[in-house]
């Protein structure tokens, strides 16, 4: 189980979300949307010295992330041909359905995620309605919510794995 990437997959997803979050913040602060009186709008993207460096750093992080991510998938698929991680399926890769115990654990973790969304989404909608939050931070909120689901899923599975 130690080398099973299906277990750490939610962490990879979270890392991906945080990278996207970095871009959202960077673009959010570097971009300006101008609306014109004739109804059109323009999108202006200005990068100063510091944000230019940040953008380059982030691009390097993206490349490194993708290399590591696909390398680990390749290694996992070689090690576990029966439980390959495939990018061509709708089913989340982190589902463990090797047998009925694993199906049960997956069910428990999924149940926790569902409960989390059942509460988090209406609370978030309420906060967005009540407070004057900008688009950038709204998007960051959505991304944090998505990262939260992976964290809950990962913790549940990890708890089970460490007790095995």
């Amino acid at each position, binding site marked *: 189980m130690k080398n099973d990437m299906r277990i750490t997959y939610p962490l990879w997803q979270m890392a991906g979300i945080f990278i996207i979050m970095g871009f959202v913040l960077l673009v959010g602060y570097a971009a300006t949307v101008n609306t014109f009186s004739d109804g059109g709008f323009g999108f202006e993207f200005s990068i100063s010295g510091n944000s230019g460096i940040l953008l380059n750093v982030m691009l390097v992080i993206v490349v490194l992330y993708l290399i590591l991510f696909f390398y680990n998938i390749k290694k996992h698929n070689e090690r576990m041909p029966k439980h390959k991680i495939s990018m061509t399926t709708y089913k989340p890769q982190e589902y463990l359905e090797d*047998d009925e*115990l694993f199906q049960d654990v997956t069910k428990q973790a999924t149940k926790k995620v569902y409960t989390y969304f059942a509460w988090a989404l209406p609370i978030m909608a309420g906060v967005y309605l009540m407070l004057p939050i900008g688009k950038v931070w709204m998007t960051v909120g959505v991304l944090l919510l998505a990262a939260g689901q992976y964290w809950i899923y990962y913790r549940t599975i990890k708890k089970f794995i460490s007790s*095995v």
Partner: protein
Amino acid sequence: MLKNRLKELRARYSFTQIELAKQVGVTRQTIGFIEKGEFSPSVTLSLKLAKALNCDINEIFWLEGEEEHEE
């Protein structure tokens, strides 16, 4: 709660958890969790275990509180 004596019966045949798991088509973890009483197997798996251990299903599993009745 479902109680069991899977570990005891497994020892009768000197099966390791992995060997028994292979026989019934599950993972070693599943056998371990059943033995610890932390996972209740389905009827199908219970029947497979009974067959692999060559015994009656009631010899492996019983409900808590019915121990005295069984013994």
